[in-house]
């Protein structure tokens, strides 16, 4: 009688091994695991301790490297005087721009992918494709994002024209003539640089030279680089000059109003007629500037800018007033130079005082904070999307279905039910992504380069530097003193990162307690 065991022949499992040797292998493996885990902890401890030992106190020079002067100072060629303030503020600016752009887009994409599940097959394929795309983007090196940011944001593919390649310091401009370099000082009381006002120039030795110290500048030059005598006004004198110029502006707008009245009366008024009105007003105001050139420019400017308003709007309307002011500005500038004499405005430290407005925006973006923040946004976007998706997935489906049961639409559900319960998870993910963005040096290196930045950005179009980049700069120099500075900078950076992570952990703990 054939038994079932005849058909089934078990394969040999191997020679029997003594239990003790197998148990020994197990214990050895555990010991090896503990050793490797201990190694990981040891490496982390060695990292932190070595940096702390190098960065806090200099034993040879008997001084604290990480002192208040370091935090609030500016980079310098002297290691003992260098500081990190512009980099710190630059990092915060970048963080602001990055967060403001990445969070809406990232959370929006996550909501789209998680809440709006497509029903048709083609749409489902598309959604899978988008999901795969995001996963791939998360693995792209940040260097590539830096190159993309450089070409797409800073240079804008060259489609809009050259960015100001000679901009060096926020709020000031280095102008290059041949191989000579000049720093631009705005004429006192004239407002900021970008409205095309009169300005004067002072020579500096090279493109990277520091701004001239007070008393160093002995000769100013005008727009054609002819030497010119210029008064140097401090803040109080600038305010006084500004008041005088505003009075002059008010007087000169009377000229513009006369022109507007004439154009309203006769829309087809000839250019000669306008010039006559301008000349008459000139006489009345007693303007002294170069009559022929400025009058002509003023007449053309007034005629072209007021042409669309004449007969349509009243002279007191805001667009008309703005147009008159803009057209009259060159007259005011030229007249101020003649009547009050050329003068430049310096701040309390004796540096050129230009006041770019914080809402200034120009294209192409150039190597500005805005371009840097947008590049960091590209780096953090995949991370934010993935973590927001996980946070949204963690919301129990019963909540959504209850909301639908009450008759809410999809957006009402998302806005009132899903998002509020997912917010702690989303915020944790966002904070961790931002802390990763702070530490990214490669895209910033490509976008901004190593520039000698001494001022903090005042608007989103200013040049900038960031903490990891400054650390990289110091660490790549051969002198030992800069290593200590780099270590101190790292301590600051890790401190900022640690505070971010602590906030994230606190949020997570509070959410877990509530949930």
């Amino acid at each position: 009688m054939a038994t079932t065991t005849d058909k089934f022949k078990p394969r040999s499992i191997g020679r029997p091994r003594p239990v003790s040797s197998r148990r020994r292998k197990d214990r050895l493996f555990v010991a090896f695991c503990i050793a490797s885990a201990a190694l990981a902890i040891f490496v982390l401890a060695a990292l932190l301790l070595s940096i702390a030992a190098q960065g806090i106190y200099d034993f040879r020079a008997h001084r604290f490297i990480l002192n208040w002067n370091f935090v609030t100072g500016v980079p310098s060629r002297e290691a003992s005087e260098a500081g990190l303030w512009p980099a710190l503020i630059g990092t915060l600016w970048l963080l602001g721009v990055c967060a403001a752009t990445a969070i809406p887009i990232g959370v929006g994409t996550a909501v789209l992918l998680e809440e709006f599940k497509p029903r048709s097959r083609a749409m489902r394929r598309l959604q899978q494709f988008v999901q795969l795309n995001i996963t791939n983007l998360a693995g792209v090196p940040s260097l590539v994002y830096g190159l993309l940011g450089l070409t797409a944001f800073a240079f804008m593919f060259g489609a809009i024209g050259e960015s100001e390649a000679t901009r060096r310091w926020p709020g000031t401009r280095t102008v290059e003539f041949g191989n000579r370099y000049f720093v631009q000082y705005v004429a006192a009381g004239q407002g900021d640089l970008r409205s095309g006002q009169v300005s004067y120039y002072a020579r500096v030795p090279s493109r990277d030279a520091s701004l001239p110290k007070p008393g160093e500048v002995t000769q100013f030059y005008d727009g054609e680089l002819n030497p010119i005598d210029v008064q140097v006004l401090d803040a109080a004198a600038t305010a006084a000059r500004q008041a005088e110029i505003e009075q002059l502006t008010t007087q000169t707008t009377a000229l513009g109003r006369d022109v507007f009245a004439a154009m309203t009366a006769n829309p087809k008024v000839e250019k000669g007629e306008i010039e006559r009105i301008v000349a008459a007003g000139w006489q009345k105001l007693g303007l002294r500037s170069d009559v022929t050139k400025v009058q002509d420019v003023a007449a053309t400017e007034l005629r072209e800018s007021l042409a669309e308003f004449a007969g349509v709007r009243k002279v007191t309307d805001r667009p008309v007033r703005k147009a008159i002011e803009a057209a009259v500005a060159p007259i005011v500038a030229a007249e101020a130079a003649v009547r009050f004499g050329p003068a430049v405005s310096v701040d309390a430290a004796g540096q050129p005082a230009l006041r770019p407005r914080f809402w200034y925006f120009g294209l192409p973006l150039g190597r500005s904070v805005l371009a840097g923040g947008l590049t960091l946004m590209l780096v953090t976007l995949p991370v934010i999307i993935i973590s927001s998706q996980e946070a949204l997935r963690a919301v129990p489906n019963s909540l959504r279905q209850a909301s639908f049961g009450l008759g809410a639409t999809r957006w009402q559900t998302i806005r009132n039910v899903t998002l509020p319960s997912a917010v702690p998870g989303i915020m944790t993910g966002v904070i961790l992504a931002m802390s990763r963005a702070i530490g990214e040096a490669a895209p910033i290196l490509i976008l901004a380069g190593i520039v000698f930045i001494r001022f903090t950005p005042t608007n989103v179009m200013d040049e900038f530097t960031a903490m990891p980049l400054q650390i990289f700069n110091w660490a790549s120099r051969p002198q030992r003193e800069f290593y200590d500075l780099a270590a101190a900078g790292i301590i600051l950076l890790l401190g900022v990162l640690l505070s971010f992570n602590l906030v994230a952990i606190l949020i997570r703990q509070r959410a877990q307690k509530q949930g």
Partner: protein
Amino acid sequence: MTTAALDAPPPTTTPKAIARPGRLRSSSLRKLREGGILTTLLLCGCFSLLTTVAIIYTLGRETLVFFRGVPGKFDGVSIFEFLGSLRWSPLLGAEKHFGVWPLICGTIMITIVALSVAAPLGLVTAIWLSEYAPRKVRAILKPVLEVLAGIPTVVLGFFALTVITPTLQFAFIQRPALGQDGRPILGADGSPVMAAWNPFGIEGYNVLSAGIAVGILTLPIIVSLAEDALRAVPKHLREASFGLGATRFETSLKVVFPAGLSGIVAAFLLAIARCIGETMIVGLAAGNNVVPLHEITAPSMELHEFHDQRAASLATVVPGTPFVTEAFRARAGERLDEVMVGLAADAKAPAKLELLDASGAAVVASGPLAADETRVIDWKLPTSGETKGALRDFGRTVEQAGDFRVRISSDAGPLAINAVNVGGERLMPLAKRALIPVDVTSSMQPMTGYLVQIFLGDVSNLGIEYYSSYAVAALLFVMTFALTVLGHIIRVRFQQQYD
């Protein structure tokens, strides 16, 4: 009972409203709003697609310029030279070569070192975390790994430069530094200059320490992804194995590990992608030496770029102690085009630059070079702030083959020298030549290191170097993209189903 109490009206009880009724909203407006919201969200979703398209377009556009050339500025580089040639010398020299394989070789070497550190440690830790570790240990180890993952790469690069390299050089044991002739170098005060013991001959910039730092960087990635893969293996497999009498080690190795293999392989691929794309660590610690792959096939040595250690170790010129490079051989008919010296940032003292022949006698400068001519190149350093002094295009042709050296002496103050480049090509002592691609103790420039080098300089003139960096970045992108897609495919297709 007073009348007042009876006459008081009974308290009215109006039920409190549980919710105020909202105003009636039109359903068509609501549909419009829903549609508007959906459109906005769709635009957000398209943004990620747009990013990928933008990356491909940007990299592709500039790479095309690199391949085609700009008439009037530079000729294009053919794709066969880019992907086929073994020589990469884009910066110095009259002839520029753009074969990308030396950079790929540097990247591969760093990846190998990084994975040989991170893979064993990472896998073992992952297995331990998922199979063995008690909860207390998990609570300690997980945060440690999270902190490691969150450390910026600049910090790790600095760590590699200041801690790992001196440790590998045994810098805690100091010996007197020996000069070219075997005698101790004397410092400014007559006492011998001390340097690290360095038994393995590890250079100041080397692949080993950069690779170890990149390994530390990728360790948390491997641990977390591998642990996820191992935890996804259902419990009943383990329990079946225990039921058969296996130890925990045998279970982990023979049951759990093969079951989670797809996820582990995907983790490795992602880690490799991360290693390839790592920029700051290699920019700080791996140096700028391009691997001279073409020399392996070259029949004889040619003129080379000479790269000595950094200023902190041997290349400090003090008055009375000149610095002499190692020998390089020049063939008859060879042309010396330039001598370039990289200096520390505050170099100010004038220096004398001499070319020495084989016997050490001083030197030849202008006119055709013969082995025994003697003339001195007197060369003043440029004004402060310059870190590179160069004699360019002094174009001397060697009449008779021989060995030459460069000697730099200083009269006024100590001069810290980073590098000496002659003729723009790589210089290698004869003994080291065979070990070129695998010599982890020396400096090798990877792809990302080249990109850092380019963008540290001035890119506003938009020459061929600027476009070559886009070509290298395009290759980098293709590599990491392929790895990520491959990892995804492996994880999805080969995932075990446990139903």
